[in-house]
């Protein structure tokens, strides 16, 4: 079985109205690529470091390829176009780990 892959996003919304358009549009792409929200906003604490953004999201994909294809899909690119200039976004694509864990 493939390792899962994740989008880790930190977002600061600067234009709520325009950002709404993005939220309305991104579901189509997420659905197509089997995405699942692991973290969707929610209270958080910065335990180390700085540079926090107020919206933090972790989205799970079935594998690395799906996670990559989702971002590049016409559906997601259309959603991105809707949030242009409406948010500061850091988005990282990262593969999951399924090896041994601390005992």
């Amino acid at each position, binding site marked *: 079985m493939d390792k899962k892959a994740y989008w880790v996003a930190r977002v600061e919304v600067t234009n709520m*109205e325009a*950002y*709404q358009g993005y*939220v309305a549009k991104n579901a*189509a792409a997420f659905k197509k690529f089997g995405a699942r929200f692991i973290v*969707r906003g929610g209270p958080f604490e910065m335990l180390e470091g700085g540079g926090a953004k107020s919206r933090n999201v972790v989205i799970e994909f079935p594998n690395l390829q799906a996670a990559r294809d989702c971002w590049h899909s016409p559906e997601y690119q259309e959603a991105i176009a809707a949030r242009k200039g409406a948010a500061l976004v850091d988005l990282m694509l990262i593969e999951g780990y399924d090896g041994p864990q601390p005992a």
Partner: protein
Amino acid sequence: MTAAPKIRPAREEDCPALPAIKSDAARAFGDLRRDVAARPVSVEAMAVLAAEGTLWVAADETDAPVGFAAATMLDGTLFLADLHVRPDAARRGAGRALLRRVIDHGRWAFFPAVTLLTDRLVPWNAPFYATEGFVMLDALRLPPQLAEKLASDLARGHDPSRRTAMAKRL
């Protein structure tokens, strides 16, 4: 009847079951809605909302929908177009849980308010929404699209002295 229904985002395959849930739920109104031509739920329109992420179902132990909430964008607010629970699954918190999911989504998507149209008097209508912080709006000062929806409800036979718009500021 056991645990409270579980709330989850609707999938396309849930949609064909939704019109029957609405008509079953409508029976709980008895004679009150006798002269109202209910706005039908279109499976196609529901599938679009499922893809847009503004359709949720309350599912039973077998994951089959027993209730649903459908929301759209109206006047820049999140408009709760449908909230129905099948009578045999009612009174176990599914409606409230669905409503709270809609409110959560409204906050997440930066909507300034959730709006809806409902009956002033039926206990599981306006009085229920009031318990979640909704207030009635003045019918003469509604935003244009909501006013149009209200007018279309009245044209379908809803009693103008009972149909009301409500909103919850987020």
